[in-house]
């Protein structure tokens, strides 16, 4: 009962951490500023992972950045949601045959919502966020719970892509 009330309130105030790994970051300034103005929906940018609710991964992830994204995601406090942005996180996009980039983000981290496109326009971002808010209110977006429950599976995939470098400083 209380969880449902909490979910409804959570869906109205989202602080977003944007991890600008790839070219998709260029669509975020127009989304934030006066033309599309995402603050009218209650989404604001946040500077640190520990105070953010949403992690937005914009674009391709090399194995090197994937490791940092995993650290960032694990630093965030639950409940937390992960949005994959662009086709690169979805299926590799134009970098599907690159030796350095991963092909599918949801093998390594639980993705609640994907925004398809190369690149998605600000309209898509806003529409996607509205859908994410609905999913949060209904309790449908529970990637963080799945990450806790299936931790072994995720850890195995992370180890397969990163080798023994996971949780090392170099």
């Amino acid at each position, binding site marked *: 009962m209380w969880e449902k009330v909490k979910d409804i309130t959570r869906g109205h105030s989202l602080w977003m951490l944007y991890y600008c790994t790839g070219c998709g970051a260029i669509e975020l300034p127009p989304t934030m500023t006066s033309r599309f103005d995402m603050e009218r929906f209650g989404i604001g940018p946040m500077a640190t992972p520990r105070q953010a609710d949403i992690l937005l991964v914009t674009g391709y992830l090399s*194995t*090197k950045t994937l*490791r940092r994204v995993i650290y960032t995601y694990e630093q965030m406090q639950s409940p937390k949601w992960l949005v994959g942005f662009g086709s690169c996180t*979805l*299926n*590799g996009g134009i970098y*599907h*045959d*690159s*030796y*350095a*980039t*991963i*092909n*599918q983000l949801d*093998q390594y981290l639980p993705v609640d919502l994907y925004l398809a496109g190369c690149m998605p326009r600000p309209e898509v971002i806003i529409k996607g966020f509205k859908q994410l808010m609905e999913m949060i209110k209904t309790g449908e977006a529970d990637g963080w719970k799945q990450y806790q429950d299936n931790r072994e599976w995720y850890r195995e*995939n992370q180890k*397969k*892509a*990163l*080798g*023994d*470098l996971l949780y090392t400083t*170099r």
Partner: protein
Amino acid sequence: MLQKDFIAKIKQEFGLDPAHIKAVAEKKLAVTVDSGEALSFLIYLKNIDFIQLSLITAVDWIDENRFELVYTLVSWEKNLTVSVSTFIPRDNPVIVSVRHIWPTAKYYEWDINEFFGIIFSGHPEMGNPLFLEGWSEKPPMRKDFDPQAYSYERFPSRKYDYKVENKGRVIE
């Protein structure tokens, strides 16, 4: 300095065959030298005001079984850009480092060592990782490395269920 005068100057002072010098554009020259005399030619250029090393890069000519190394040098006083290219065998890719002549060469040479496997003797970072983490395959910029096979083997791809209704064909 005019390009014509500069070519004559190189010929006179260094004794290089003018057939190895090619004028690419009005203020750009491409010079090909042997790998043995590459270092002395680069030192000679440094002494005549080519103080800026803009780039070192490598090309993998797999059919000819050799690597090409290209050093791009800029002189601000002469207003000229010279790219010095030299060839080294692919089986034993070793060349002398120019890190002590231009300190900027440190990262260019380290980068080439990581991505092509060329060894710059006299460089302390050979074999240490710079960009790639935990890399155990052959250097990825070599032409005989297959990035697609590596990517599909190591990173799982998404499977799609789709039905082909009209298969495309080549019209001749």
